[in-house]
């Protein structure tokens, strides 16, 4: 039976019809081979528009569908479904893009109409060769892996667990809590960070639906959406989690030093004990200590010298022979919530970090303010005295093309918070050296306004240098900040006792590795690229892998929590479906032609092509394949073909484009 193609031409209001002569195009399409029906309509994507083609299919008038309208990105799915509702395989439909590729980008005129004709001729030739394809479905494992136990991971895990779904939460540190556990207060409400975080940490630790794996790292992720195989390495803690009750007798007696003391209070960045066996902080979950093998006198270089903690432990929970352990399990979806690290300011030599006493980072100041921190919550100089003037330098590592071009979003606000804390705890003068104040969130601008009345000095300008070189008596023994005050229009030298560097947020050094393992990409800024910057900020290009928190971009706590809940909701929607349709337009290896060179194995960006050692040929995993065609183009033997984009289909399209040479009235190629 002959092929009967229906062509539907969309006006898209005036988007297409304003530039393309629709009547002429309709007339043209009627004259094309195998076309048995041509219709035009104001909006093909509207319900009546869809009904038009659906009915023609139902009535058996056509067995191939071409819609000439917008980009397939917009409405391919819409028309595929309409075709399917009419009773035809959805892959017997194809689209000609006469909007984005034609009317929107060309001027009014005969050439624009001619181009629309070319595109339709191409689509019609392609439609002639289309073949029905069968979509496949795979079941979705309802268990979810959450990578990272900061506030993002905690929120995502709790949301899923509360919905009755199983979660595995993997955290690289010995305790969950992340950066938020190191903060004293949160902006702009100034409520206690620990007070709002620790109840959630405890819920995670106790929840029957959450399997918590701390001090563990992702080793390998295989499989595909709905069916991921995960291998996690549990690092040796040297403390038996079942036996230990967290009493603390072990670290009381430990002679090892994990955090060196150099007589400088700021060296002690730790909130917990600074001994070799330690609890990261008092509210740690799980409340089980861990031994730092690098500094433990027993474990270090296998010296077996000490052994005190084992003697002290009444429950025999210390196990020096413990080794790293690999654990394998299966999940259906993955949420990456692996967080950030702060910028290391020692590379900006001008700011004197690591060289000058009393130049400290924001995180060091944060910990100094914690009641359980190095100074018991007191704001002190390295010599223990109270500072009389403190400067806060904004945008250290952020908004700087030498380091990170992006704005880290949280620094303005935490710097304001510091001003308030300093004013509350000391009599010190506070200087804020800022480029622009960015107080964008709910209640943020109000907080800034409040600080303006709290006698904080705001100096607009990027700090040039922090130096110890005094030029006059007032500067003796001080740190001097040199800055161009751009509102005053002059260079100032401001003597201070302490300088806090508001370091920006950057991608964690291990993020690229985590992203690689989960088969998602990181951008030039180092953060994971989301599926769409506006409409898909939670998903990634890899189905079943979602994002939450600062692994995607710098974020404050409210945005992080919102994204975490969004990610868990996206996962829940996947789980509720129970199964997922998999794209039928995938690549296929002709085993007779395959020479087994494995080139395609390395080319595939989705790791979908694997080598079958037994047969000696490459095989495409259809569940992973996105049909991108990279392997097809790369195969030196021409052994791989892409379903729905076969060579003959593409050549037919090209022929269709060139068929226009016969009828074009203007701009015929010369010579």
């Amino acid at each position: 039976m002959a092929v009967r193609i229906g062509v539907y031409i969309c006006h898209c209001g005036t988007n297409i019809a304003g530039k393309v002569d629709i009547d002429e195009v309709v007339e043209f399409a009627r004259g094309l081979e195998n076309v048995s029906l041509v219709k035009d309509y104001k909006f093909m994507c509207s319900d009546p528009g869809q009904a038009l083609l659906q009915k023609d299919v139902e009535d058996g008038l056509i067995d191939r569908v071409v819609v000439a309208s917008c980009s397939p990105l917009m409405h391919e799915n819409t028309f595929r479904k309409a075709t399917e509702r009419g009773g035809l395989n959805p892959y017997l439909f194809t689209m000609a893009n006469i909007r984005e590729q034609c009317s929107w980008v060309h001027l009014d005129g005969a050439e624009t109409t001619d181009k629309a004709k070319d595109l339709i001729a191409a689509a019609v030739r392609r439609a002639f060769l289309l073949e029905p394809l069968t979509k496949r479905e795979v079941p979705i494992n309802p268990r979810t892996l959450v990578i990272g136990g900061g506030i993002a991971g905690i929120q995502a895990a709790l949301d899923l667990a509360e919905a009755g779904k199983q979660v595995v939460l993997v955290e690289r540190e010995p305790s969950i809590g992340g950066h938020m556990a190191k903060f004293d207060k949160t902006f702009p409400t100034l409520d206690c960070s620990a007070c709002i975080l620790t109840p959630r940490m405890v819920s995670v630790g106790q929840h029957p639906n959450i399997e918590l794996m701390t001090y563990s790292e992702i080793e390998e992720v295989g499989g595909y959406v709905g069916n991921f195989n995960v291998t996690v390495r549990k690092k040796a803690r040297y403390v038996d989690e079942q036996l230990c009750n967290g009493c603390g007798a072990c670290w009381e007696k430990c002679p090892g030093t994990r955090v060196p003391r150099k007589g400088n209070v700021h060296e002690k960045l730790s909130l917990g004990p600074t001994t070799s066996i330690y609890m990261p902080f008092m509210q740690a979950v799980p409340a089980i200590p861990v031994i730092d093998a690098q500094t433990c006198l027993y474990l270090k270089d296998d010296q077996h010298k000490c052994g005190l903690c084992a003697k002290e432990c009444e429950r025999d929970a210390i196990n020096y022979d413990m080794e790293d352990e690999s654990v394998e399990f299966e999940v259906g979806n993955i949420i990456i919530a692996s967080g950030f690290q702060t910028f290391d300011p020692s590379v900006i030599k001008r700011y004197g970090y690591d060289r000058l006493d009393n130049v400290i980072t924001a995180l060091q100041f944060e910990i100094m303010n914690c009641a359980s921190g190095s100074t018991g919550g007191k704001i002190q100089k390295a010599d223990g005295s109270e500072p009389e003037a403190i400067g806060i330098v904004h945008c250290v590592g952020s908004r700087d093309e030498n380091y990170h071009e992006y704005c880290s979003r949280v620094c303005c606000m935490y710097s304001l918070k510091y001003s308030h804390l300093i004013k509350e705890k000391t009599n010190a003068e506070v200087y804020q050296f800022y480029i622009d104040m960015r107080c964008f969130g709910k209640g943020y601008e109000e907080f800034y306004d409040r600080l303006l009345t709290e006698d904080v000095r705001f100096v607009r300008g990027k700090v040039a240098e922090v130096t110890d070189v005094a030029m006059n008596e007032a500067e003796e023994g001080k740190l001097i900040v040199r800055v161009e005050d751009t509102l005053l229009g002059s260079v100032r030298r401001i003597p201070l006792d302490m300088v806090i560097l508001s370091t920006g947020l950057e991608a964690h050094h291990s993020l690229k590795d985590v992203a690689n393992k989960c088969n998602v990409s990181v951008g030039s800024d180092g953060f994971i690229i989301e599926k769409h910057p506006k409409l898909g900020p939670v998903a990634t290009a890899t189905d079943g892998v979602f994002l939450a928190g600062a692994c995607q971009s710098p974020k404050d706590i409210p945005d992080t929590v919102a994204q975490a809940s969004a990610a868990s909701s996206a996962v829940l929607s996947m789980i509720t479906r129970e199964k997922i349709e998999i794209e039928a337009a995938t690549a296929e290896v002709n085993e007779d032609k395959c020479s087994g060179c494995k080139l395609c194995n390395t080319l595939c960006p989705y790791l979908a092509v694997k080598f079958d050692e037994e047969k000696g040929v490459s095989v495409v995993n259809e569940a992973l394949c996105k049909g991108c065609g990279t392997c097809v183009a790369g195969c030196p033997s021409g052994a791989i073909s892409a379903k729905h984009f076969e060579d003959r289909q593409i050549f037919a399209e090209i022929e269709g484009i060139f068929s226009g040479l016969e009828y074009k009235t203007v701009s015929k190629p010369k010579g």
Partner: protein
Amino acid sequence: MKYTYYPGCSVTATANLYQESIDTVAPSLGIELEELDDWNCCGATAYMSVRELMSFAISARNLAMAEKFHRDLVTPCSACYLVLNKTNHYFNDYPDMRSKIGKALEAGGLSYSGNVRVRHILDVIVNDVDMEKISSQVTRDLKELRVAPYYGCQIVRPEMGFDDPDEPESMDRLIETLGAETVDYSMKTKCCGASLMGTEEKMALALCRDLLMDAQKKGAHCIVTLCPLCQMNLDIYQPKVNSLFKTDFKIPVIYITQLIGIALGASPAELGMKRLGVKVSGEMKRIIEGA
């Protein structure tokens, strides 16, 4: 290691002590310097601001003559280093300037293709010479000697690539290799006043005072530098600084090659030490001679 040597004008006059110390230590370091025949003025930083093309052309003449040797061109002077590099940069990256310079050279029967690498002698010492080779030849114990390493502005800025533009440390490493101690000198790359000493003397003297002050505060016995102009300003004008600001600095300002010579056991005469304005005395003298 053989290099083409471009001395520059300073080391033939005010900084002849620099040249003497280079002549003394170069053989021990395995550095062979063959002076570029018929070299002329580097183009000079100040002149470059007045007549740019003339300055580039003068500078390029040296590069054109050096090209045929296919060796790095080494200079001990930071200003020459900067200007010759700048000429290379303009010649290679600005086609318009390249053709103008090319024409000027042509008139003198020369041509240049832009391939001479210009290096400072500090770069050569710290990066081409094996540090162990230096430390193994040290015969004087300098561990008590506290040194303020002063790089000046021109050797690392604009970014020349062999050291950090804000906080260089290559000379620090070299000084420590020689067995001396470096102090945490905050003025490493700050301005010495340069040629302002001839036009705005008070301002230049104030800048020198700041440099000397920090060296003294940090407990340095001496300042070690690598630039003829820096050395002259800090050394020769030190008495003027003292009289203007009522200070009492007596800080010897020596060249890095002089310090190498001292560590390697050369005599003060071989290193031109007697030509210093502020003489080595007191504790520094004791450390150097006692060892």
